[in-house]
């Protein structure tokens, strides 16, 4: 990710992330996961369905990335990510509690310092 792209990333509160509800539209063929060497920063990438600007009532696929800063939870490399079917964010006093539900698997519970949502401009 370039510096310019990083600059476009705006931290969101848990409530704002909850309102996005983008995680309901992740596609199975586009989810990927990147983890820094120390395992503290995690990026979950996928595609979401958004309403088309040129054709209302139609939806197009768009890339989206979630950055979890200071990740704390189970070994992320052991999580088999196929499809995110639900998500929940709760703002705690000094961190954010996150719960992802994967199709056919147990939920993934973890905490992080904060979450950033990255949507590249079309």
């Amino acid at each position: 990710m370039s510096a310019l792209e990083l600059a476009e990333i705006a931290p969101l509160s848990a409530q704002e992330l909850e309102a996005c509800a983008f995680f309901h539209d992740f596609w199975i063929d586009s989810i990927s996961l990147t983890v820094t060497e120390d395992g503290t920063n995690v990026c979950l990438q996928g595609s979401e369905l958004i309403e088309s600007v040129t054709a209302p009532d139609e939806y197009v696929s768009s890339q989206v990335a979630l950055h979890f800063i200071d990740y704390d939870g189970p070994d992320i490399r052991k999580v088999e990510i196929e499809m995110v079917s639900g998500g929940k964010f709760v703002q705690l006093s000094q961190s954010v509690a996150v719960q992802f539900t994967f199709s056919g698997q147990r939920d993934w519970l973890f905490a992080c310092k904060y979450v950033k949502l990255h949507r590249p401009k079309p």
Partner: protein
Amino acid sequence: MKEFEQIQLGFRWFADGTELRRALFPLLAKCTGATPAFFDFTIEHRAVDKNELTLNLKMPFLWPNAQIMQIEAQVKFLGFDGPELATLPSNQVQWMEFERLSEGYIASISFADAPSWLFRFQKIEEVGLHAETIRSYIHPETRYSPSPPDSTIITSKG
């Protein structure tokens, strides 16, 4: 009764191992999943110390031999950090999950007719457990046949 002995052994096994205590909750959830209509869930707020959440669980469930066994458990979460306790729903619990963090745990409680609850806590102070068969139950439309929980199942969830 064979089933009663099994569940008593299971609880004693948990009480002996601090690290395994959290595995109790998937066991409870497994039982609630068996007969959710029987599940009763109450919460005691500690107004003096807002960092402590106490859950009082009462969970009757049905065994294949048509006996109803009620489990009562009291769980205290110390170092609680999460939503306002006053907003916690007090209706039926569907599922509970726990995950270890570098310091403490993160937990999720799913309710039957309300949003799930997500919070952190430092440790569980104590788990009080009591189980007894309360009465026989025969319902003409009862078709569920749960398997009694055993230590093998518990270990795999822990």
